[in-house]
């Protein structure tokens, strides 16, 4: 199976690990990530204003590119996923945005939300299947107590993202089980890490992450996993630096025994 892959800006720079481990793991699991040519930055946050069109166009271009190839579009970074899925929903369901975006882009055939947008985790759950993943694990992470950190971008608004139960998600917990570790459920796993506020209001974001890390530790987590480079950055700035935060793809690669295939590791 071949997917159109949208890596996004951070995965090309600060979060190269997230990307590299995902690629080698995909190969081990039998699907292929074909990077969209000339993809443009999604903007990092979804433009909420109903009159914002230009800021949504980069997402539409990527979506249309996948449509022309007849592929589903995979994202890995939570922010890209959030933005592209919501823009896709606009293109499908909001007449005004669809019309104006298409008028602007002048594509061969108007784009109307045809592409299916999947997060890498959704591919693991819905296409590969966690049972199958479990079978392919050669290096189970037995005994590790891992807290999944979802944040906001993957889950909300639940009606549009349709990713998991926004108040009690389990996809990352199921993933943790599949790679042989023990998931630790804690209430703050879908609370915000501070997001973009951490640029100007460092103290504020730190407080929020302190709450998250404290709750995760209290419930017994020895490590946190995330799918978002910004979440990772913010969580690493919390006062309590004992709790390591890693990308879920790193553990995936480790469990599949392909971690060493990533250069320099």
């Amino acid at each position, binding site marked *: 199976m071949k997917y159109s892959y949208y890596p*996004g*800006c*951070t995965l090309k*720079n*600060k*979060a190269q690990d997230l990307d590299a481990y995902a690629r080698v793991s995909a190969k081990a699991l039998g699907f292929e990530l074909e990077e969209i040519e000339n993809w443009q*930055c999604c*903007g*990092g*946050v979804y*433009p*909420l*204003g*109903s*009159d914002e069109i230009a*800021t949504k166009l980069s997402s539409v271009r990527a979506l249309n590119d996948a449509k022309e190839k007849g592929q589903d579009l995979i994202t890995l*970074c939570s*922010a890209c996923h959030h933005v592209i899925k919501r823009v896709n929903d606009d293109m499908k369901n909001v007449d005004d945005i669809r019309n104006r975006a298409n008028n602007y882009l002048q594509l061969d055939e108007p784009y109307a939300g045809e592409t299916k947008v999947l997060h890498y985790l959704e591919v693991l759950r819905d296409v590969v299947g966690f049972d199958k993943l479990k079978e392919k694990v050669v290096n189970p992470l037995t005994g590790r107590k891992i807290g999944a950190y979802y944040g*906001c971008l993957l*889950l*909300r*608004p*639940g009606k549009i993202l349709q990713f998991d139960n*926004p*108040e009690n998600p389990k996809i990352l917990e199921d993933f943790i089980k599949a790679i042989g570790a023990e998931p630790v459920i804690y209430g703050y796993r879908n*609370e*915000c890490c*501070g*997001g*973009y*506020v*951490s*640029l*100007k*209001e460092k103290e*504020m974001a730190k407080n*929020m992450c302190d709450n998250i890390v404290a709750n995760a530790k209290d419930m017994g987590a020895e490590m946190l996993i995330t799918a*978002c*480079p*910004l979440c*990772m*950055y913010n969580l*690493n700035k919390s006062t309590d630096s004992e709790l390591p935060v890693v990308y879920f793809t790193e553990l995936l690669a480790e469990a599949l025994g392909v971690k060493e295939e990533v250069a320099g590791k």
Partner: protein
Amino acid sequence: MSTEKKQAEQIKEISGVNPLKCMKCGKCSASCPSYNEMDIKPHQFVSYVQNEDIESLVNSKSLWKCLSCFACVERCPRDVKPGKLIDAARQIVVRQKGQDYLLADEIPELLDPDVPQQLLVSAFRRYRR
């Protein structure tokens, strides 16, 4: 039409929110992780727009404390979307010339070696025109 009335209409238009749907239960403020940082609280956004007190709203520091984390939107029993309302107020500000909350000049001192690109693009999108 007064400026504030016009702006109130604009906020409703941009956000797509109907403030009249609010039943003042406060679940948004109970859910907000930035509550303590805000001067105007999430459940009050609605009444400021309804009362057309846009002057206070656009000068509120809440504009820059909201994380767009959508906890208020997800949990609102009346489907009011307070987070979209405050974003629209923020748009009213940053769309005016010279009202950017983040200036290119301040970036260098805010940076550290780990800052992900995502943080910069997100902040630029939210804080600037």
